[in-house]
């Protein structure tokens, strides 16, 4: 059994969002970088649990990114996993990134590929689907539960207003969200061990860049809150009806 977990690096959830260079670049000063929460808490931890249950499992992590992603990759290795692969490029195009992951996946013959639901900076929710298509594998998105029985996976995924339970034979690509696993804190042994785990750097394969970011912007500031005294709570309903015209 071989599992590949896709790990991306994102700004901390409380990072100040600002742009430089005439609104074409994210302002990185003072930004703390973390493992994308969906990748860490759900995809990686669930994969680690599968390996704990079946120690013969081989668990690899992959990141497509520059050398500046290495501290985040080591942090992921401190949680678990046998080795990490970094494909050395700074492209932000989803198709280009997915092509790199698909190539590594093809070479490594993985049975199971986990991604996060989405990156919290790009909010694409698209790498998993692209990788699955490039590998002609089934894709189960927005998974909240994952159980393995031999080579058959039973997966619960989110649908509008509820959930769906499905069954699929490996190999499969799964995008993971809340419910898959509980967040873990790396222990000292993990942190020490991560330093000596292999982190292979590969050069990217040729692939198309289908999109580019032209500019960034911030939403307009709110006008400010209109406060209604608690005694006149019913007034809120009148304002929503007459002023905001929303109910």
């Amino acid at each position, binding site marked *: 059994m071989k599992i590949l977990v896709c790990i991306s690096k994102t*700004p901390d959830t409380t990072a100040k969002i600002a742009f430089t260079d005439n609104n074409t670049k994210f302002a990185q000063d003072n930004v703390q970088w973390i493992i994308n929460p969906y990748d860490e808490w759900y995809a990686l931890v669930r994969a680690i649990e599968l390996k704990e249950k079946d120690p013969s499992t081989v668990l690899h992590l992959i990141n497509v990114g520059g050398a500046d992603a290495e501290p985040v990759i080591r942090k992921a290795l401190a949680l678990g996993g046998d080795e990490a692969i970094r494909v050395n490029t700074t492209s932000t195009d989803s198709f280009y990134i997915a092509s790199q992951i698909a190539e590594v996946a093809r070479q490594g013959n993985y049975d199971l590929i986990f991604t996060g639901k989405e990156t919290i900076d790009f909010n694409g929710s698209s790498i998993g689907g*692209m990788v699955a*298509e490039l590998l002609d594998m089934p894709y189960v998105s927005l998974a909240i539960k994952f159980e393995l029985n031999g080579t058959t996976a039973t997966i619960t995924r989110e649908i509008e207003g509820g959930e769906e339970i499905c069954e699929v034979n490996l190999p499969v690509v799964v995008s993971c969200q809340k419910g898959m696993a509980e967040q873990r804190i790396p222990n000292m042994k993990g942190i020490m061990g991560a330093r000596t785990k292999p982190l292979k750097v590969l050069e990217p394969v040729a692939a198309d860049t289908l999109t580019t970011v032209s500019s960034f912007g911030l939403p307009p500031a709110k006008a400010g809150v209109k406060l209604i005294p608690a005694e006149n709570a019913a007034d*809120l309903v009148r304002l929503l009806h007459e002023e905001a015209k929303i109910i």
Partner: protein
Amino acid sequence: MVLVFIDQADGHVKKASYEVLSYGAKVAEQLGTTAEGVVLGAVPADQLAALGKYGVKKIHHVANDALNHFDAQVFTKVIAQVAQAAGSKVIIFSNNVDGKAIAPRLAARLRAGLVPGAVALPETANGFMVKKNVFSGKAFATYTINSDIKIISLNPNSYQVTEGSGTAEVAPFNATVDAPKVKIKAVNKASGEVPLSEAEVVVSGGRGLKGPDNWALIENLAHALGAATACSRPVADEHWRPHHEHVGQTGLTIAPNLYIAVGISGAIQHLAGVNRSKVIVVINKDPEAPFFKAADYGIVGDAFEVIPKITEAVKKLKGMA
């Protein structure tokens, strides 16, 4: 030609599909071309023809039984066949659950640039640029699509449905349909409730409600408003509410017309999931709660006293009391 994927469940066209139809028709107008729709699975023919009201001339209908259940891999191959046969240059999805599974697959299959989570019409005067939300709603980015075929996945509740008149021609499409590899075993849907991702009004509760037994407060108000219910992350973590109600950075991102937050402090991770709501109402007993900074209307007060008053007033307004 602009092709719009019309998402359906159990033979009913989803609300998000009307948004993408209206959006697609406008994009087509902008490009000086026509919009057509594609529907997979069984939907009554009159319902399909009626989609003409939203500006599409033709609906390609692939009514194969194997398509009554969703499988991203199978759906992608079918849509690709329709897109190729019809010569579609722009393909539009809703960025809902199904759209998030198919649009990226189709993008990879057709080598088409994808902008997921678009919030506005493309700018086509100079290249093809699409604005999307990034940083969980805290900012937006304008993407340029460089490929010949372009795919846009529109965020739910970001485009006004425009209803006109007219009927669409319904054209059966004979596609090669693979057997799905994903087998659906069970579907658990809370019946009768408004799905959170499609709701226009959402009433949401936080830790300020003290415990699951107090949720009638939220539910009664939601019921009076015809709203969906949501919650903050700790509420779901403590199993006061089902996890699919959790909104925020690590939960669902929603953009209803009205979001009413009760007993929620307004942490930045919570705001990330709701800050695209058109109007935000905050009810919190702490005047310093950060949520008030993001609110349009606010009441500083005890939810247990304030909410029943609001519920009564809503019922009165709607003639329910």
